[in-house]
């Protein structure tokens, strides 16, 4: 992995955009420093030889219980729809009403 700082002001701007989080100028500065320190620390992973690991094998160990999943689908949920909808920002009948996309 390349040496030196991976994260600069521009990267932070871009990540803030991507993650839909508005950052203050002070936060941008702070996170630039913090992220570089954290990435510097986690970079020790790069030195590990993982050639013997096959993640597909790991994934195959995960079993999905389709029968249980189907049963859950049929089971009535223990909550009232209104209780969920009550948390909405704005609603029109049972729909979540959102601001315009553009």
């Amino acid at each position: 992995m390349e040496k030196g700082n991976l994260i600069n002001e521009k990267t932070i701007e871009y990540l803030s955009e991507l993650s839909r989080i508005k950052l203050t100028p002070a936060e941008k500065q702070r996170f630039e420093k913090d992220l570089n320190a954290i990435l510097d620390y986690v970079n020790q992973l790069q030195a590990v030889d993982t050639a013997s690991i096959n993640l597909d094998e790991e994934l195959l160990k995960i079993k999905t219980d389709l029968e249980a999943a189907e049963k859950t689908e049929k089971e009535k949920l223990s909550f009232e729809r209104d209780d969920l909808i009550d948390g909405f920002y704005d609603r029109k009948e049972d729909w979540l009403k959102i601001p315009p996309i553009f």
Partner: protein
Amino acid sequence: MITLHELTIKKIHSLLLQKEISAFDLTKEFFDYIETKDKEINAYRLLLKDEALRQANEIDKKIAASENISFLAGVPLAIKDNILIRNYLTTAGSKMLAHYRAAYDATVIQRLKRAGAIFLGKTNLDEFAMGSSSENSAFEKPKNPLDLSRVPGGSSGGSAAAVASHQAVAALGSDTGGSVRQPASFCSLVGLKPTYGAVSRFGLIAMSSSLDQIGPIAKNVEDAAYILEIIAGKDSRDETSENFQFQARSIYERKDLRGIKIGLVKEIETSSFEKDLALSYQKSLTCLQQLGATIEEISIPHISLSLPCYYVLMPAEVSSNLARFDGLRYSPSEKAGSLKDVYFETRGEYFGPETKRRIILGTFVLSSGYYDAYYLKARLVQALIKKEFEEAFQKVDLLVWPTTPTPAFKFGEKTEDPLAMYLSDIFTVPANISGVPAVSLPIYGEGSLPYGLQFIAPHFQEAKMLNAAYLFEQTSNYGKFL
């Protein structure tokens, strides 16, 4: 007058059955105490007094009618505020959810309710369970009852503070990188992280789904075991939950540790321990030997990479899990503009600094161009560490090492340096990365502040692990310090 300090689950059960107290009076006594005590501790975010007293009344009716009651019936518990209790506010310590009312019960809550447990209230935590001191709470910051100038640990700091200050008999926390065990250790309590898959997380506000586990914080191993018995097992609403059954009485099976091999991981260098930790750790090992255990050194070559692994995988999952907090569905936002503006403004204003830091970091490690170098590499190293744990457990029955490198630290001591805060999880994270169960028990050196000793077992061997922990607790007798 009941002495709240001396209460355990077992004691409450026998007092209730002998009709020496009623569940109602007991619950009321707890609330009277909380009213004054919590002004100094800040353990609770929300009290559920009316509902708790109503629940207690139901239990009293059952006792009066000589109905069978479970061990947990009438037992007052505190619940971490990232676990949903229907109809009550659940903030996860975040302004983002300041007004969010849970529409359903978490599976653990459903199971505890069925067993008759009483919920006194919801406890303070680091925002979305991200932190090691509870200082990242957007609301009240709980204090360590053993020393009010120190943190109770985190992220389940409020739960540990409530139990350690006798404002609850036991509590539920969640443990993604040590958030049950580390606060338990800082507050001289027992903290249990069950095997990944042992307890359903349905109704736990997700932080890092491949690592999150719910577990009890209690005054002793027995109490932790009683709670695990109730909350463990398959739940069709959490696909990762397994058909695991645990019986609390299994912790009494063995009377000593003869024939049990306990491994010390040589990569965890005792020479780096601070003096008091080294002393308390050495005393603990002697105690285990006195119980008949054989102690041998084994190797988990990449164990020290668990923490760097964690700080890639966890933020990646955080960035994805917390995408749902859009200011539209869970808490009404007053922000205006286009949809993107609402997202941008709401998330910018209502997430705290640590939450933002982890989302931004997670977004980075998942971004195109860096995904392979960070996320994928961390997954590979995780698989390697898991394999090394499996190999270690072919040689020994259990592993032990400390819970934290230091005792509870002072408020503000690590808030300026996130990496220093992260490093306080160095001994707890390996159990999450490998998915194995771990329990922390208080140990003491010469100082007045406790450390923790962790027992770590192979997947789903909670019975063997808690049996050994119980024997250790009986012999070391550190419970008396609280």
